[in-house]
């Protein structure tokens, strides 16, 4: 039996947890190991994120889960018509989470979560072929979510709470495909803003349909992070009244889309099977519009035109022994990017996520959770067809679209480690 499980884990690993756009689905090591399922899994305080309604069903008075993931993401690009190639610089980003749940009475529980559901770190070599779209970008959002969970009946509970989101963005790109100063240094802009905050909310419900079957639903609202008076810094600008790019401030809205999750779990002996379906309402991300305070500088609109995207998640858990719990999972993550809008700052096509992990019990109260995710992408021929040529450049350049594309291949590998403490 154990042999079979190992094979299963390996198979799953060669066959899917991460999400399209700049959604980073890494909100718990236990859940991630099971394909990032969890809306109907009563396991730990990771429920603060996955389904706060379920907190009231946790067995312990106090449950704490803390952890982080190391995201090793690479993207290769090539264009067979020109021979142009590029590869993102290897970098590590570390989304983290911390959840606490507290059982106040047998029908009421409270929770608090801090987690990082959105973010993106992509850095290409400066002045690479797509530098007019992005040289590098670092986007982070931290959510803080107090929650309440109320048992309505023994089998049905509801939960939810407000979300305070705070984010930061740093985005550097060249102004056009060609604009440069006297010595040929490419003209570029850096947009930087930290401490952008806004409020949202989450609401959820859980039904323990039978001893074995649990059903859950969770909704997290959209939060628009509005950068106001961020710093726009221009470099290598020609000394010319035709290119009036002076450092200024900017306003821009970055939407963190709403997400609806429905799912179920089924327990059979030492096994637990879980299925989650996510719908992420990406269609809110129509464009990244940057409004510069300096009236001489043309405002830019980078069309995104994302579509709502689904994710299908499957997970299995096996309690191998008193000490060990093994997990595996798979998910299919649909990209929100539509044909012709494949921008290299979020170079994500559809992907298969393969996950595995384990929990090792150290005594009665402490558990160590480990997980990993291998996100497999197929090569994709894709392009961004809506870059406005001559935007902000000399008036004699024709305002029309140019296309940037080729073949992209991404790989993402995410090891993760966390602890769970139960009292």
């Amino acid at each position, binding site marked *: 039996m154990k042999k079979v499980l190992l094979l299963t884990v390996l198979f799953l690993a060669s066959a899917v947890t991460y999400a399209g756009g700049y959604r980073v689905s890494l909100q718990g090591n236990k859940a991630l190991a099971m394909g990032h399922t969890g809306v109907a899994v009563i396991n730990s305080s990771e429920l603060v994120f996955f389904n706060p309604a379920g907190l009231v069903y946790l067995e312990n008075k106090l449950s704490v889960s803390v952890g982080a993931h190391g995201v090793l993401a690479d993207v290769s690009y090539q264009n067979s018509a020109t021979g142009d190639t590029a590869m993102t610089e290897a970098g590590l980003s570390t989304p983290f989470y911390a959840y606490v749940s507290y059982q106040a009475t047998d029908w009421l529980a409270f929770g608090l979560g801090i987690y990082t559901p959105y973010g993106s770190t992509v850095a290409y070599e400066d002045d690479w072929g797509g530098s007019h779209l992005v040289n590098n970008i670092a986007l982070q959002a931290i959510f803080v979510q107090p929650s309440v969970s109320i048992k309505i009946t023994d089998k049905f509970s509801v939960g939810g709470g407000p979300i305070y989101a705070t984010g930061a963005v740093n985005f550097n790109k060249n102004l056009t495909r060609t604009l440069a100063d006297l*010595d040929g240094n490419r003209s570029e802009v850096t947009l930087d803003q930290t401490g952008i905050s806004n409020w949202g909310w989450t609401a959820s419900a859980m039904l323990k349909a039978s001893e074995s079957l649990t059903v859950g639903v969770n909704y997290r609202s959209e939060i628009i992070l509005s950068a106001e008076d961020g710093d726009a810094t221009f470099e290598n600008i020609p000394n010319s009244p035709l290119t009036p790019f002076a450092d200024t401030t900017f306003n821009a809205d970055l939407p963190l889309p709403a997400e609806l999750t429905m799912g179920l779990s089924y327990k059979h002996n030492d096994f637990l099977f879980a299925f989650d379906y996510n719908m992420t309402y990406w269609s809110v991300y129509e464009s990244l519009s940057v409004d510069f305070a300096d009236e001489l500088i043309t405002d830019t609109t980078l069309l995104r035109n994302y579509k709502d995207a689904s994710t299908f998640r499957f997970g299995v858990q096996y309690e191998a022994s008193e000490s060990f719990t093994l997990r595996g999972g798979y998910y299919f993550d649909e990209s929100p990017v539509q044909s012709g809008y494949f921008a290299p700052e979020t170079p994500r096509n559809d992907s298969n996520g393969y996950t595995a992990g384990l929990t090792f019990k150290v005594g009665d109260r402490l558990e160590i959770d480990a997980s990993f995710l291998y996100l497999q992408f197929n090569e994709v021929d894709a392009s961004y067809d809506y870059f406005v040529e001559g935007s902000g450049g000399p008036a004699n350049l024709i305002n029309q679209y140019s296309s940037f594309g080729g073949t992209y*291949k991404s790989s993402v590998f995410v090891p993760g480690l966390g602890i769970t403490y139960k009292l």
Partner: protein
Amino acid sequence: MKNTIKFMIGLLAIGLVSCEPEFENAVTDEGFYDAGDADFSNYVALGNSLTAGYADSALFVSGQEDSYPNIMAQQFSFVGGGDFTQPLTSDNLGGLLLGGVQITGNRLVLSADENGNPFPATLDGAPTTDVLTSASGPFNNMGVPGATSFHLVTPGYGSVAGVANGTANPWYARFATSESSTVLADAVSLNPTFFSLWIGNNDILGYATSGGSGVDQAGNLDPSTYGGNDITDPNVFAAAYSAQVDALVAGGAKGVLLNIPDVTSIPYFTTVPAQSIPLDAATAGAVNAQFAQYNDQILPLLVQFGVITQEEADSRVVNFVEGINYPIIVDNDLTDVSQVLQGPPGNLPEELANLLGQLRQATSDDLIVLPASSVLGSVPDPSNPLGVVGVSIPLENQWVLTTTEQARVAAAGAAYNAVIEGLAAANELGYGDMKSALADVAANGAFYNGGVLTSTYVSGGAFSLDGVHPTPRGYAFTANTIIDVINTTYNASVPKVDIGTYGTVTLHNN
């Protein structure tokens, strides 16, 4: 526990396979692109300013980096191409020094006045590229600005001593391997496996840009007697050109020969309209009155006395109308009647006779050169507001390439191209029809990812501010055109470049 270890090993294995994303068929893989029958391992480019990467009236580092041979060499790197060296200048100003004294001007940049109106201006700054600070040649890019066909085989063309007395070329003198070497010998010494040869443009260009100020040397087989603005005799061209091809193919190299475009479709000749003098009815009438005697009496008399033909007399009639007019010009190919007019029966004063000596009104077929824009319509003598160039003062010969002069340029160019095409066929080399390519850009424009490349001055994107040499984008277009020829000729699949990623004119205010 044993199973846990197995599990951890499984985890690790998965971690290892997931490293860098690799393509099934990477463009960097050997064999993705095909060199065909050519060997690009040692590419040498031979030519003039176009090959050197000259633009905006100067040779400077960033321009050289976007020379068409350098762009091609970068693409050759996918099919076995080796290093491609260039005699890079020392800065992005472009001026050349001889022993610390500046002998050529800095590059042109596109400046703008306070209203945003653009105009070309010479970049300020002290250049640092000195002819005496020799660059150590030879280089893979053997493009020498200003060189004609016969210059490439003229010993001493790179003599530093000769630069001061005007017999040698300062750009070549920077990197000539010796005082007596030739450009061709230096190029051949590199033992190229592949070459491009684009020479002959200057054999007609100087004549054209000087408005036909030089001499058509057809029939004169001694190029040492030629002036800088002369048209090279086609036999002199053929001898020099075939010597170059022979020397380049002697070692078994393959290559491509590029023909000579029609110079008259470049912005230097097409930007300033011939019809450019606005006059109201009263002024037109007043000016016409000044020319009444010339039109109605002098010209018929000259015909009557057999000095000029009726046809020439008809071409010399001056008539201004309300609206936009053609300027009056000096046409060296008209019969010079200044002496005749000073004699009887006219007995015109010398000044007037000289004014009328080779005078006519321009037509739509005459080409006004770019620098004439600052001359046309100007009033050279502020004390005489009636002395307007083009109206009462003829536009001098150097500002106009007349139809007669255009015909000489075209005839020579056609003769050169016949030689080039013949030698390409005889040696089974690629033949790049740059003439047709440029004519197509001028007539229809070339569509690319993000725009249309045209020959319109400044805004067309193909030509730099000197109106003669391409921009980096124009050079990229040139490189693609040549790569097409190479791929066809040698069954190769060298990838081309996206010309939209190459710049055009440089914006800068001093």
